[in-house]
């Protein structure tokens, strides 16, 4: 298998994983909005969530393939991927803004604590960016 085929395989895998991780992160963000799931004092879960967030952001911002050397890393993170990443981050930004607006509106009719709201807003922003990145990459791969 040459490096183009290896890059293709890794890109395909990354697209699928990105999509799945995005869905999982959104689902988990909404679950975390319920204090019965994450108590304010459950620091282990809160730290776990923060670590997972950092890992997902690293995956989204820096891509993959860098462990295989700079040349291969450049191949799997070439200009199409960079453009898809920018578009995904933009989608995530709008999702975050929209979710924040919905939370703001909801706060007039229900008691909405700050921490669950942040969980949902961040989950929507990062999750939508990951899902959109996965979709764009899969579309780009189709012959």
């Amino acid at each position, binding site marked *: 298998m*040459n*490096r*183009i*085929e290896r*890059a*293709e395989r890794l*890109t395909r895998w990354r697209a699928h994983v990105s999509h799945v991780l995005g869905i999982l992160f959104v689902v988990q963000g909404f679950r975390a909005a319920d204090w019965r799931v994450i108590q304010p004092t459950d620091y282990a879960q809160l730290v776990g969530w923060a670590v997972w967030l950092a890992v997902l952001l690293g995956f989204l911002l820096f891509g993959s393939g860098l462990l295989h050397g700079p040349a291969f890393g*450049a*191949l*799997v993170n*070439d*200009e*199409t*991927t960079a*453009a898809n990443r920018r578009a995904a981050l933009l989608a995530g930004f709008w999702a975050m803004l929209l979710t924040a607006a919905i939370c703001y509106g909801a706060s007039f009719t229900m008691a909405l604590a700050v921490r669950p709201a942040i969980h949902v807003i961040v989950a929507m922003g990062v999750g939508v960016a990951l899902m959109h990145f996965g979709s764009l*990459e899969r*579309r*780009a*791969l*189709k*012959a």
Partner: protein
Amino acid sequence: MTPPLHNRLRALREARGWTQAELAERTAVSRKTINTVENRVFIPSTVLALKLARAFERPVEDLFWLEDDAPAT
């Protein structure tokens, strides 16, 4: 708004009997990038356009042209 960019990468590539992967190897980009440029999903950077022109040993205007501009022959 970015003007539509036309190209004849596919025709030139197929005339040489190259696959997308072979062209990708020659230009040091992924096959996905070649695919998206060929299908006009993605507008390449100047650097990539020049790399593609070099791979085909043709001026860049032979590969890409703007809408309403006749392709160079």
